[in-house]
């Protein structure tokens, strides 16, 4: 089955990010297709490479990056939600005159159309949030 995933809560505060990751991993192991994972609301915080949890804790951001690299996943962070919350890639940083960027490897920033498109293209769009 072709799945789209929506993550709408931030890492560590809320289990949504963990559940989305575990669901994605399990779906891939079962041979399903993950068309796209879209990060919205505080979910965009899943995509900052500056995240530095204690060493004995799971690293939610790196975990996404590694899974994306292994399975060629499309991890999309909503541009409007990201800008509000200070998540920027190099292009966005330049455009907005910021002195640094923090988007983690394997993620890309794009518009909300990517979420709607996932809803259209996928057999199931699964939301992880409140």
């Amino acid at each position: 089955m072709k799945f789209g995933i929506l993550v709408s809560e931030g890492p560590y505060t809320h289990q949504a990010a963990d559940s989305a990751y575990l669901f994605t991993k399990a779906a891939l192991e079962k041979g399903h297709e993950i068309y796209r994972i879209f990060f919205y609301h505080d979910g965009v915080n899943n995509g900052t490479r500056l995240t530095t949890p204690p060493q004995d804790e799971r690293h939610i951001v790196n975990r996404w990056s590694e899974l994306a690299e292994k399975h060629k996943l499309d991890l999309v962070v909503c541009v409007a939600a990201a800008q509000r919350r200070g998540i920027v890639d190099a292009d966005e940083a330049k455009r907005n005159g910021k002195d640094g960027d923090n988007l983690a490897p394997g993620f890309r920033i794009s518009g909300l159309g990517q979420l709607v498109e996932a809803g259209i293209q996928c057999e199931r769009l699964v939301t992880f949030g409140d």
Partner: protein
Amino acid sequence: MSEEMMEEGGGGVIKKFCYINRKAPYGTIYALESLEVVLIGAAFEQDVSVVFADDGIYQLTKGQDTAGIEMKNFSPTYRALEMYDVEKLYVEKESLEERGMTADDLIVPVEVLSSAQLQDLMEDQDVVLSF
């Protein structure tokens, strides 16, 4: 927004999209960011329904004044939904009654449905996004 509006990707498929708004307009960002999805999604020309239930019905209340909390009053945008061909707005009857409100308290014309009717509506959808 214009850049995002160009991101067509539907490939001619028309699905039933239902956006469910359950939270108050201020206090959390869900209502505002839900509205942004509805507006962007309109460019994809899908069959869209927008539902307001629980505290979500406060998103549509008349006379919102946000000056005291230093936030933008985005409620006039709901009136613009019609221009985006988003015309199917539903409000849960029980949510209105529990809050002592009627459809006359809302800034846009809506169809009031019972919880059971909303259940049928949701059952009929392809994509349900809850905010």
